[in-house]
């Protein structure tokens, strides 16, 4: 009861979020109905392909939420979130591979096909336990969390910030991509995992399973949104925003900047991991190209297009940009990179607040000299604040 009231009061302050959740609810109820109840012959029928596509967009939206939380609110531009997404996906993929069992090409009850192909005799230790769903479920969150914790602990403690951090995360993701491309890693090399059969006993090729997966994804997205909103609205959330705007000042005020950053980073990585885990059974494949640095950068542009530091905008941006991508790569493949590239340039130049900046105007018009977050203002150029170089 109390939870419901809290929720209600939160949403009352957050009309955008309310609209977002209502839309999600609509997607989770209407889409399955259009797919399952409406006959195939009807114009209103939603094909399973489209249903899966929507599920994919929702996973991307969740990933965008994760990035928005740390970039929009924490000022940490991670160019490695695709890595957490892919790690979650690989954890799910490992479970799904174990579920194939004897139905693989080689019919080995324990070893996945690629291991038989590589002449492996027994399952490597890190594959143990992945035949249990609960274990895989735990790993989807734990593996990204652990990586984020170790990386974040090292990076934030030694105060690697800004661009440096971005480049480091990118390098991390790149190194992981190279590693997963190797056959000896035991993750299927550049083919990755595919040809999944079923999840928890339900056939993945059945429409019903697809519908359930979509509903679960929508629910997960809604929950993550509420969780992010709760974090942002909390006291800790305000500290995180303070760190974004003036890190040193926050530190001097006595806050442990490193721990705040670390925990929000880890939480964000977990979100990304769960999004990846939900993505894999719907798309049916996971391979090392998911780690590619460009994927992480694309996530950032979804957030930037939607409007950073708005959560709802990030999710909306993810869906919109990906819908555009699906449309363009189908209809005008030549144009897609031009469009995406120009989008990057135009949004950063002319829409620093993204699409949400168009929809929800600030309480009063902005004037020069307003105290915008430091990352948004045209701070004095690098050289100006430098002063003369002291010897």
């Amino acid at each position, binding site marked *: 009861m109390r939870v419901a009231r809290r929720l209600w009061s939160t949403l009352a302050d957050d009309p955008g979020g309310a609209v977002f959740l209502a839309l999600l609810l609509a997607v989770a109820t209407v889409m399955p109905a259009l797919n399952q109840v409406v006959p195939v012959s009807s114009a209103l029928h939603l094909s399973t392909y489209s249903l899966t596509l929507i599920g994919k967009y929702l996973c991307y939206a969740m990933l965008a939420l994760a990035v928005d939380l740390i970039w929009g609110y924490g000022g940490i531009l991670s160019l490695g979130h695709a890595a957490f997404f892919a790690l979650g996906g690989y954890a799910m993929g490992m479970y799904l591979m174990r579920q194939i069992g004897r139905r693989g090409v080689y019919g080995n009850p324990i070893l996945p096909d690629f291991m038989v192909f590589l002449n492996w005799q027994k399952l490597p230790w890190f594959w143990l336990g992945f035949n249990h769903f609960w274990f895989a479920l735990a790993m989807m969150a734990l593996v990204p969390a652990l990586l984020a914790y170790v990386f974040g602990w090292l990076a934030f403690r030694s105060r690697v910030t*800004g661009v440096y951090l971005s480049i480091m995360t990118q390098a991390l993701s790149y190194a992981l991509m190279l590693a997963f491309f190797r056959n000896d890693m035991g993750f299927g090399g550049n083919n990755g995992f595919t040809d999944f059969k079923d999840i928890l006993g339900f056939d993945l090729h059945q429409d019903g399973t697809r519908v359930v997966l979509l509903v679960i994804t929508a629910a997960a997205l809604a929950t993550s949104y509420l969780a992010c909103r709760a974090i942002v609205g909390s006291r800790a959330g305000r500290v995180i925003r303070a760190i974004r705007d003036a890190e040193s000042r926050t530190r001097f005020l006595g806050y442990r900047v490193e721990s705040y950053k670390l925990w929000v980073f880890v939480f964000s990585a977990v979100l990304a991991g769960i999004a990846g885990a939900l993505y894999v059974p719907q798309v049916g494949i996971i391979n090392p190209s998911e780690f590619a640095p460009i994927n992480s950068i694309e996530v950032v542009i979804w957030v930037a297009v939607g409007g950073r530091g708005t959560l709802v905008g990030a999710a909306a941006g993810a869906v919109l940009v990906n819908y555009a991508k699906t449309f363009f790569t189908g209809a005008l493949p030549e144009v897609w*990179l031009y469009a995406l590239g120009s989008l*990057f340039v135009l949004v950063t130049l002319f829409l620093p607040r993204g699409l949400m900046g168009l929809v929800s105007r600030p309480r009063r018009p902005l004037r020069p000299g307003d105290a915008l977050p430091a990352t948004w203002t045209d701070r004095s150029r690098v050289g100006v604040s*430098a002063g003369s170089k002291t010897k």
Partner: protein
Amino acid sequence: MRLLDGLRCCGHRSGRGARQIGLRWFQSLLLAATLFAPDALAQSRNDGFLAALGELREASFPDKEKIVERLSESGHPSARPVLTALLEDRLYVRPQDQKIFLVKSGDDSLASFELVDPLSLRDAGSSPRDALTKVGTNNSLRKLLKLTVARFDLSSPASAVRLAAVEEMLRSLDDASIALLRKRVGVETDAGVKEEIETGLALAALDSSDPQARLDGIATLAHNLRQQVRNRLAGLLEQSADGGFVERDERVRRAAATAVRAIDRSRTFYSGIETLFFGLSVGSVLVLVAIGLAVTFGVMGVINMAHGELMMLGAYTTYVVQLAMPRHIGASILVAVPAAFLVAGLAGVVLERTIIRFLYGRPLETLLATFGVSLVLQQLVRSIFSANNRSVETPAWMSGTLQLNDALSITYNRLYIVIFTLIVFAILLIVLKRTRLGLDIRAVTQNRAMAQAMGIRTEWVDAMTFGLGSGIAGVAGVALSQFTNVGPNLGQSYIIDSFMVVVFGGVGNLWGTLVGGMSMGVVNQLLEPYAGAVLAKIFVLVALILFIQRWPRGLFPQTGRAAESQ
């Protein structure tokens, strides 16, 4: 000597050569006599040669050996080409008229052979393969032929030909070839050839029954780095199945063991040098791709994700330049360097004026916007040149190897990349430290407001600095076009590496970039034999990530207040 060789090489010219001898020797004789006598001489020699050649058609193998000896002793200029052809299975009979021909290529997959006349060595049309019969050889005949050809080559005036002949003989030494070498060693004048012959004789001496001769042989071979020599010496130390040593003499064994150890030490040393050099050349590529970034990122603080695509523009400029001058591939690279600098530099100035200048002080936004630019540039190149890789030719002067000794060889393209990188680095350093532009750039970097107050056009300096960094990226692209595929993804594969180099070396420090890139290359090469290429790269990346945690400002951190603002 020279004249004799002229005779041997080319029958056509030899007639005239003989005529000259005649003119010199018989000046006092009648003109008619001097002209006719040598021609008649040549004619009779030709007849003898042809007759011997003709006998090859039907002869048994032992008879063929005799014919070969006759041919080689005939002194006929065509002897060597004909015997070589016989050795290489390129000597054929045309049963139709019983004539013997050389063919240019004995490749069995050819439908017809191009014929060469054995006397004049001129083209003699072509014939279908079925209409010809090969003059067969067997092992002992081939051995004899090899020796005969080697004898011809050993008396060649060109030391390179002699050296090649000796090297060929060293591959399979037998009594006959040893005898030949022994005869030659006394008269040989070229030091290199002589050393090679002595190596051969020393190798032969190892089989001698006289222990002293064997010891002398080992002493000669002890400083030879060739794998063959090392294996031969190591063979002396082996034990046969019954436990006894192959080499019975204790002293010889000890000398051989010492020699093998010394050779191994030297070989390890030289392979170390080779690895180091490989590392430096890999590092040079890294420095080259990163140094433009060191200007735009290090000096200006601009994160240019399109840096890789500016390199790509440089590489495509090389391709276009080669298209424009297909006959001068060797010079095309020299033209491409300034052309690529201009193209990429211009692109950089446009990029700075239209996008980046609105984003100064907002590094993360710059990162996103320039990434967008990189996507557009990639697609642009795809639209113009197609998505396929384009092949850029390597000029002849850049291919090949520099053989320093038997254990150390350096490919020219690796050598040139190191030199090229150092030149680019030096020029950049001079521009920044010794020119007006460099002075302006440093002034604006250190204190923009003050520089402006002193009358420096900071906007112009910004554009020029960015253009300079971008131009260097283009120049790096020219170098990359010689190493990797020139395609739309060329830039992407280097962008992470180049950022890592700059961050590792210390932002804003050119020397840091040089040291950082070189050491990354060397470490990479050192790890590669143990871990493989991919794993080595992963190790380097992870090591760098950890390094930055400990020293966030890189190898050579900026000091003073300028450091705080970044």
